[in-house]
């Protein structure tokens, strides 16, 4: 085992808050900004900067002991990791949305057809949700601009990730149901969490205290 703990950090919108969190609990983060290196060593810690989806993969396979990534990514990736701390930032929600005022009509259509068409970038989250609800759906996988799908007649509903809900409103959609609230998580590899329990639990405690102290 490497002496250093390797932490995979999700690049993108949550990274600035992640750096704030790490700095607040006393971890060195200076080397992480202002250049394009993806592997940064600092004082007993090694950081890997990765795409969010890959953070979960790195940690599940043990290529990094720890990771910081949004729960939205974890729910869709289904990787086997330990979720240790809710860091509280990067809040967003998985929702089911439909064109405003169309709910009754689409439920009638469901009774008639026995199935609804749902467009989404997150097929795993959507499938699990409707399975739990016992609603038969036909999932349509899209890569972006999902809120367009009902307007162009591609689907009845969508499952999407929203933060303020503005994009939904601007596209004439309203939330039918909330699936899950997500925020950034500290995650650990299962074996690393056992082998390095003391170091990891101690870091988790500090991050939890930091998250709990924020307004």
């Amino acid at each position, binding site marked *: 085992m490497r002496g250093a703990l390797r932490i995979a950090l999700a690049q993108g919108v949550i990274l600035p808050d992640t750096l704030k969190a790490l700095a607040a609990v006393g971890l060195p983060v200076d080397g992480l900004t202002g250049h394009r290196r993806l592997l940064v060593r600092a004082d007993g810690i090694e950081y890997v900067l990765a795409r969010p989806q890959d953070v979960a993969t790195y940690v599940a396979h043990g290529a990094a002991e720890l990771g910081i990534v949004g729960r939205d990514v974890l729910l869709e990736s289904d990787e*086997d990791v330990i979720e240790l701390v809710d860091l509280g930032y990067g809040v967003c929600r998985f929702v089911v949305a439909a064109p405003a005022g169309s709910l009754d009509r689409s439920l009638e259509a469901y009774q008639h057809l026995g199935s609804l068409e749902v467009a989404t970038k997150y097929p795993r989250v959507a499938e699990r949700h409707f399975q739990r609800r016992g609603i038969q759906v036909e999932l349509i996988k899209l890569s972006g601009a999902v809120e367009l799908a009902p307007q162009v007649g591609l689907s009845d509903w969508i499952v999407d990730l929203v933060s303020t809900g503005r994009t939904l409103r601007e596209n004439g959609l309203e939330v039918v149901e909330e699936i899950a609230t997500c925020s950034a*998580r500290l995650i650990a590899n299962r074996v690393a969490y056992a082998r390095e329990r003391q170091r990891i639990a101690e870091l988790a405690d500090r991050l939890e205290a930091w998250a709990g102290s924020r307004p």
Partner: protein
Amino acid sequence: MRGSEREYDQAGVELIGPSDRVADAEVVALLADALRACGLATAEIDVGHAGVLDGFLDEVTGVARDDARDRARAGDLVSLLEIVRAAGLAPARVGQLRDAFRHRGPLAPFAEGRDQLPPRSASAVGELLELAELLEAAGVSLPVRYDLGLVAPLGYYTGITFQAIAPGLGSAIASGGRYDGLLARFGTDRAATGFGIAVPHLHQALVATGQVAIDDAPLVTLEGGTPSHTLRVAAALRGAGVSVAIGAVAESAGRPVVALRVIDGTRVERDGLVTPVADIAADLASVPDRREDRG
């Protein structure tokens, strides 16, 4: 890092019948001995108990209990605590559960305060203490760590659970535990405990320690004889357990090569000396296979 195949070979042991701690100690010690005998000295055995979580969930009702157990199995400790808190588990209990799940190491801190734990959790810690005493007395060939946060992804465990972990591997090499309720579902109510070793993970852990499979048995090549003589000599040598290739070999896979020239169906020339095939067979078949001596 390796250790995440979708399907793999398993080698395991089930001890069916006894339900006491002696049986638990036996299988844990056997797992350690088995890994040790394979040459893996870097592994640790992580021991927990399914009852630790069950005790807390006894104080939670309804669907929250199943949800909480699901989340624990999935490794989602954040949601586990959220769910039991929302389901009305007393704040002091939530704190205890959180601390238990962060604890790995000697049992002493939890053993002292175990009267304060929910009844089933307390008796789980009691069983772990008994086990620890037995393992200490028996002497286990790998380090044992007590991990109150160890939750097996599989749901049928009812008592002591354990896994073997090693550096360089992101998944457990072996896992197991007591599953007293499982056999009853298949018609025979018997207590049982056991483990499965993920054989490819064991190999990966061995490779990570720098160890590779050693095969010293020589590879014999036959040249120069008539086809029928060559085939007879090859058959005689192979019958004695010697590996034989007819003609030159492109890749000996690290094994020593012994080149023989076929004279006739019963004699070969080795290093300029004509020798009966039977003598060569006796000589080469007696080269010890070092794999037997490991451990």
